[in-house]
Structure formats: structure tokens, C-alpha cells
């Protein structure tokens, strides 16, 4: 598949608000990206016309009840079958911030065995409590399963901003060890919060900005094609979005966020 043949669907619903910049990042890389309201997808039944699906950041349905919960239930009810097909055919699904929350609430992540009926993890209220907008570092932990990080060498430290109040990744206390082991065994662990030198946060604020279990910032499902992360790659795409560009004489043209979109496109061009 050539780049210009690729069609990515950036889904939105009332309260989604990072759709435009997500679409822009994809278009900059030469693929077709379209922001589509879920109402339209449901009406036209055309989800399977797209090669990849992105749940962007925002506050879907105001995040009332719990972040991402309403949209997750809604999407499973209305588009559950299509989503199953999407996952089965290993078409990529990316959830950024609120999108990650949706994928977890919908049971697509961690997705140890396909789509689970009940959420197996949660993105809980930050600790320290409250909304937090800041640049953080994450380290690529993945050994190659996650198709969204294949252009990123293992152990590489990336810089991106986070902006959320519910990003504390947790498992149920009694499942913590078992599930973490599974994440490692299945190569589903993708990003962990660390400092600029790559030292893990070990829970220390603000390096781990939300109190996530095991400093987890992003995970993928067991097939590596569904991926969710709290940081915003679309806000770390161009050099001028970075927090220290005024200090540097020379900047790379792009920020680290681009690597995630590049990996996605690379996968699509090779696989389909």
C-alpha cells in the first residue's frame, strides 16, 4: 500500500478536541486522514473502509461518570462488531490521552485475549490530584510487538507533553503482579515514564506525573496493533512545538511524536 492510498479515520464525538492536530500530523506524512463524527460512521456503516482508526484526546461526553467511559460503552454498543473485525484483521487502532482511556474502558486494552467484556485496567485520577499539563520523558520498553513504536529503538527516551487529570494507569490490586508479568511476557509494555537520562521515575513526581503503576505511560494489546498512551505525540510533532526550541541554535525538523505516526504508516505500507 502506498502512503497516499492509506486512509486514517480520526474519530470524534462531542468533547473530542485534539482531532485537528492529530489529522495534521498524519497529513504531513503524506497519508489521507479524515476527522469523522461517530454519528456519521454509524449512519454510513463505513468504519471498515478505513485502514487505521484513531481515538484522539479530549473530554468525550465531558468525561462525566469516568474518563472515556461513556464513549467506550457507546462505541461498543454501536460499532462493536466493526471494532472486533478491525482488531482481528490487525488494522491499527491508536488511542491518545482520552482515546487511551476509551480503549481501556472499552476492553481493547490491555486486551490480553482479544476484547474483554469488562475493563482489565483503569486510568484513575492522577496522584497528585488534578489536571497536569507538562512535558515529560518516556522510554520505549517494547521489543517490537507494538507496531506504533517499530521505528523507535528499544530504550530510546522520547519527550512529549501530557495534559490530563486521569492518567494513573492501574490494575486491580490483586491482579497487579499477574498482569504486569503478562504485559512483559506478551511484549505489551510500550512506554514508561523516566527522566531525561532514561532513569525510571519509580513513582517519583513529577517524572511520573500521575502516579501510574510501574511508571506505565502506554501499552499495546496482545497483537501489538492496538495502542494507547497518555502523552500527546501530535503536540510533539514539529520542532517549534517543543518547550526549549528558543534555547537551541539548531533543531531537528520534527519532534519525537512523529516517530509514532511514522511507525504506524510504515506498518500499513508494508502489511497491506
Amino acid at each position: 500500500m502506498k502512503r497516499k492510498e492509506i486512509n486514517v479515520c480520526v474519530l470524534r464525538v462531542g468533547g473530542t478536541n485534539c482531532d485537528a492536530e492529530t489529522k495534521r500530523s498524519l497529513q504531513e506524512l503524506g497519508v489521507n486522514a479524515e476527522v469523522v463524527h461517530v454519528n456519521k460512521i454509524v449512519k454510513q456503516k463505513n468504519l471498515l473502509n478505513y485502514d487505521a482508526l484513531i481515538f484522539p484526546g479530549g473530554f468525550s461526553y465531558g468525561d462525566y461518570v469516568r474518563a472515556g467511559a461513556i464513549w467506550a460503552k457507546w462505541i461498543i454498543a454501536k460499532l462493536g462488531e466493526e471494532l472486533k473485525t478491525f482488531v482481528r484483521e490487525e488494522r491499527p487502532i491508536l488511542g491518545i490521552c482520552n482515546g487511551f482511556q476509551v480503549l481501556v474502558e472499552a476492553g481493547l486494552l490491555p486486551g490480553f485475549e482479544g476484547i474483554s467484556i469488562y475493563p482489565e485496567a483503569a486510568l484513575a485520577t492522577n496522584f497528585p490530584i488534578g489536571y497536569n499539563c507538562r512535558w515529560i520523558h518516556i522510554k520505549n520498553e517494547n521489543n517490537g510487538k507494538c507496531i506504533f513504536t517499530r521505528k523507535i529503538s528499544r530504550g530510546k527516551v522520547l519527550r512529549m507533553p501530557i495534559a490530563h487529570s486521569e492518567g494513573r494507569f492501574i490494575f486491580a490490586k490483586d491482579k497487579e503482579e499477574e498482569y504486569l508479568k503478562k504485559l512483559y511476557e506478551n511484549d505489551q509494555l510500550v512506554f514508561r515514564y523516566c527522566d531525561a537520562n532514561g532513569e525510571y521515575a519509580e513513582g517519583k513526581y513529577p517524572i511520573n506525573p500521575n502516579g501510574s503503576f510501574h511508571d506505565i505511560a502506554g501499552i499495546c494489546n496482545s497483537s501489538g496493533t492496538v495502542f494507547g498512551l497518555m502523552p500527546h505525540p501530535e503536540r510533539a510533532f514539529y520542532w517549534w512545538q517543543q518547550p526549549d526550541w528558543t534555547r537551541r541554535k539548531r533543531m531537528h525538523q520534527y519532534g519525537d511524536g512523529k516517530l509514532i505516526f511514522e511507525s504506524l504508516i510504515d506498518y500499513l505500507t508494508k502489511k497491506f
Partner: protein
Amino acid sequence: MTGKLYVRRKTSYSIFEVNILEADDKSLLKISKELGIGLNLKEMKRVQEYFRRKGRNPTDVELQTIGQTWSEHCFHKTFKGEIKFNGKLIDSLFKTYIRKATEKINPKWCFSVFEDNAGIVHFEDNYGIAIKVETHNHPSAIEPFGGAATGVGGVIRDILGVWADPIACMDVLGFGPLDYDYEKLPPGIKHPRYIFSGVVAGIGSYGNNMGIPTVNGAIYFDETYVGNVVVYCGCVGLLPLDKFRRNVKPDDIIVLAGGKTGRDGIHGVTFASAELTEKSEEVSRPAVQIANPIEEEKLKRAIIKIRDLKLASAITDLGGGGLSSAVGETAKRFDCGAIVELEKVPLKYPGLAPWEIYVSESQERMLLAVPPKNLKQVLEIFEEENSEATPIGKYTNDKILKIYYKGEKVAELDIPFLFEPPKVERTAHYKPMKFNEPNFPQPDNLNEVLLKILASPNVASKESIIRTYDHEVKGNTVLKPLQGEKAGPNDAAIIKPLDSSWKGIVLSCGMNPNYGKIDTYWMAASAIDEALRNNIAVGGRRITLLDNFTWGNPEKPERLGSLVRACEACYEFATAFKAPFISGKDSLYNESPLGPVTPTLLITALGIIPDVRLAVSMDVKAPGDIIYMVGETFKELGGSEYYRLKGLIGKSVPKVRVDQAVKTFRTLTKVIDLGLINACHDLSEGGLGVAIAEMAFTGGYGVELNLKEVPRKNLNRDDFILFSESNSRFLVEVSEKAREEFEKLMEGNVYAEIGKVTRENRLFIQGLNDKPVIDISLNDLLKSWKQTLSRGV
């Protein structure tokens, strides 16, 4: 005698006729009070006269409509009225000072000023930038979260109300001291800490949920804000100017879109036009609206689509006064009349009386005028977004407002009458304050003083608050409010709104309430200078201004006198700097049982930068670079943070020397455009000491300065040089390589090399006698600056 004054019509719903025709003065005032419409006797008599001419009594719907339209909040009676001041008669403060400045400057780049919900200036090609700043003080005092959130929601709708897509928010807040003694709080006044946390959460909640980055602002603490919290909410939008539509014709349909209408926000404008009292909570709680940002987000999507397809002929937001203001003002503007059928308005719950429906200020509602042929398509677009839209009437060609409820006429008013309230006549009086300049010896330990000033709430880092606002969403924030890893305070924010262009917009503000305690004239001058120099420091130019006044009761002559003084300065300095006002707002009657608010003028500055790649941040960049002081330092410590630390005010308020300032600003823009400077930071609260400390710890390099080199007049004390707050000054970092060119361009300006960036992790300053007066590690400086308002983690 209430029975006689109000006669209920025999209908299934509640509507009263008010017996105004026979009412004496006392009854007229009684009616005004009992209906909660806040009209004075002169105004009530004008109403009586009108209905006598009509030969009938008004309904409650009619009186409420008049009350809303004539309120201070909607009509700005004080700014439009006549003021006797120092033996002269000022016919409208607004026309005489604010608009006149813009007319005199007559800038070509202004697209629409003072006309619409927001001011609009040209940007690039076919694009314009809309900007508006609102006040939401009164509601925030009663219900901090809801008050602040709906303040943000309201100003975003102002931007939508000129067909612009909101791209950035700004918020400037004023609170009482957070450690205020609970025992001293009078009944009905909430503790500053409670108000502070509610307001900050409300602002974050709305902006974050809407996906609009909050990129600029300020927080100021003052005793007078204990009883009168100050909440300024600003929003900036982008619009293609060829899609800007305002051409309503008779028969265009009135479409009400967005949220449903309820009893929240009844009489918000009347409430905002009165002083706060012990009973405000009880009486005015319903005046505060309930926020639902997601409703507005959906509304925004639909409106932008309708704009792009040019399907509507006008748009306005429903803010103060609800439908009554929005319908009335649109009809007035296009020389139309209007017919409204109130039963069509979607309600949150049944049981609202017709007048309540008409004046409710429920949030997230917009009013569109739609030519009949486009109606279907418009309604479909709203439906696609799950946003409710309902035709509720139409515009007519007769200049009469007719309101129906369930087929029965409940109001009929002539539009011209509705917009001709009796002119307010007020008296203003100005008496210079009698403060003395303090006399104390220079303290032995200036290290301690600097650390204390850095920790004072007005100077201290606001990081813990700013991080609760999403300032990165949309991915276009080129210069962020927090600079770098240490999160230093950038002077202004820069947004790059178009993917196709490097041009950016520069947002900054200036506010100096403490100077106003000495003289509001120099407070206003300083606020303008500060807003401009913040903008210029990062690379902004072609700057337009917004004025937002928060004042006490204008019916008290000395309060009004200080307002006139501030307006005089606005005219003088806006024209001198050639920075026109394009929009503004006043919030008067900020008085509580603790007294009036200290006069607080916020100046917001909107500049452009031709290429965002030229932007300059405030952090020092490289050891060996030279530090220059640009501008002259005077013995101006009146109202300074230094004096405040000693519990003093003083008299020597900073002035603005316009000729020198204009020259400095212009030269600075030139050197920025040539890429000659590595960092630039404006000097404001805390003066040189604070500014250089911020530059050093943000950049992570030490700085060495010598106070002897600072260009100054009549200043021979280290502490005064360090902490004077003279206006129009900058600190600039220049590399040795660029020195020659920089100095050549600076010729004719007051400036001097005062030190250099070092590899030491210290701020080291030599005093006039060459002995060290400041020697502090960057860590200690940073710690003091950050601890005061830290999150306490």
C-alpha cells in the same frame, strides 16, 4: 398595596400586568425593587411615560425586558453617561477617551472595533483575529467554580459571536491574601482560599474541556479583593474575513441553538450592576449560571460549519440579559423588529414564567439569524453535532418587538424606545492621595530582601496553577506561558494559528492595581506600558489593546473621579504608543461589606510577529553573553513590591516617559528581527532584582551584574536600583559576536552593559561601592520563587 400593583392575567401560566400608570414615585421604586430590575426613579418615570403614551399598563415581560436592556451591565450607563468632573462636562467616557484614541490613531489593520461581541483585526491574507476580555467578578464571589467557568464559557461565545473559531484563552485573576484571617471575614464573604481554588478549577475545567489552550494570564493578590474577587476571562479567535456575515433582513428566522433554558442565570445583569451584600448569596445564587463546556464544544463545531457554508445572516451570543438582549440588540442593529414565540424555547424543566424564559442567562446558547431558504440545512448541521437548535421567531420590518406565549401577546415594545434609556448624569471628584514617601535606611542584607520578594505572592511562580490549564492543546503554542524545564515566566505567549504561515499572534497583559492606590492615572499608563513591553519583549508589534475596568460604585463621586483619571491616561498613552483599543468591558459596583475594590485596570495586548521563528524567550542562553539594561531607572518605588514588603505604599508611583519609551520599543523590535538578542525580559514587579533572578534560574546559568552601570537618575542606593519598578525597561542578553551591531542600533537609546552570563550557579551583584550586595545560588532563588504557591507535593 401589592395587590393593586400587580394584576395576574387569567391564563394557565403566570403573567402579571403591572399597574404603572397610576403609580406614584414610591410605588415606581417599589415595582423596580420587587421585580428585581434595578431601575432608578428617573428610568422608571421614563417607562411610565412610555406606557402612558401607549395608554396601557406593561406586563412583567415588558418591564423585565426594559430592566435588562437598561442595566449597567448591558448598556454601560456610566461609560455612556454624562459626567461632571472638575468643572467640565464629559459626554461619555467611552467616546471621549477610549474610542477617541482609536479614531485618532485610525489604524488600517482594524476590521471591526467596539461594534460586535469582540474586536477584530486583520491577520494574514483573508484571516482576521478576534479578541475579547470579559469580567465575571460578581458570580465568582458567590459561586467561584461556576462563576469562573461560565465567565470563560461566556467569552468564548463572544468569539463565536463574530464567527471566529476560538484558539486561545487568557485569564487574569485577583484574590484576597490566601492566609487571610478567618476571624476577620464578615458574614456572606467567602475565604480567599476557597474562592481561589474554585475559580482556578472553574477556568481550567471550561478551557480544557473545550480544547482551547489557556496561554496567558496573571494572578494578583490584594486585601481589597477579599470581598471583591476579580475574574477577567479572555478569548482569541481566528476567522476567514470573507465568511463574516452580518446582514439580517426582515423574515430571517431567529434560531436559538445550544443548551436548554432554565432558571439559572436569572437577573445576572441586575446582580452584576449592584454592590455585593451579606444577602447576595441568598438573593443572587440563581443569578449564577451552570456550566456545561461540552454543550458549547458541540455548538462551536456546528457554528463553524454554518459559517463556512455562509448559511446564516448574523450571530450573537446569549450572555447578560439572555434572549432579551440578544434579540433586542440584533433587531436594533439591523433596523428591524422581531417576533418571538417563547413557548418554542426548549426548557430544562417546565414551569418557567414567560419573563423568566426571556431573561434567563442559561449558558451555552447562541442566537442565529437564518434566511428561510437555509433553515433546513442549518438545523441539520446542528443535529449532526447533537446540538439542539430551534426556530423561535423571526425578524420583521416594523421596528417593534412582539413577544408571544402560547398564542397570546405578552409584550410589545418599540425597539428605539428600548435603546434610549435616560442618560445617566453623574458627578466625579478627584482628590490626590496623601501618601508620604517613606524614609528608611538601606537594609544590610539584600539577599534576604530579594528572596522575600521572589516569594511574595504577586511575584512568586504561578506554575501550580498554570499547569492545571491545558496550554498546549491544538498544538500551536509556540511560546508557552512556562519557559523550559524550570518553568520560568515568559512575558507573553505566541500562537501560530495557520499551518500555512509562520506568522504568529502575541498575547500579553499589564495590570498594576497597587499603583492605582496612589494614582489611577499612572496605574493606567503603567498597565499600558507593561502590556506593550511584555508583547514587544518576545517579538510582538502592531499591537492593539483591550481595556477592562473593575471599579467600585460609580455613583460615589470619588470612585468615579479615579475612573475618569484612568480613562484620561488610556487616551493619552494609547495614542502616544499608537496602540488602539478595539474592545473592552467595565465591571462597576465592586463593593462589599469590606469596602470597594481597589481600582483595577487590566490592559490586554494583542500583537503579531511576522515569523514565529524570531520569538525570544526570557531565559539566559549562554555563558559569556552580555547583559544589557535597556531603559532608565528612576526613584520610583511607590506601590512597589519592595515597599509592600515593608507594609508601605509610598508616593513615587512609576511614570511613563512616552517619547523615550516609543523609541526603545521600536529599537528593540528591530534588534529582535535581526536576531541579535538571545533573551529578553521585561522589568515589572520586583524590578531588576526579580527580573535577572528569573532569567538566570530559568536558563540555568549564573549572572554577574554591577549596579554602578545601571542607567539611572537620582538614584544612589543599591536597594532602590534593584527594586525600583520604573516602566519601559528590559533586560537583554546579547552574544559577544552580536555586540557591535547591537550597540550600533541602540544608539540614541538609554541603555548600558551591566554584566554577563557566567558558568557559576549564582546570581552575583555588586553594589555602588563595588561590594557584593547579592550573592545567592540559583537553587535558592528558584526555591523561594516556587515555594509560595506550590502544589505542596
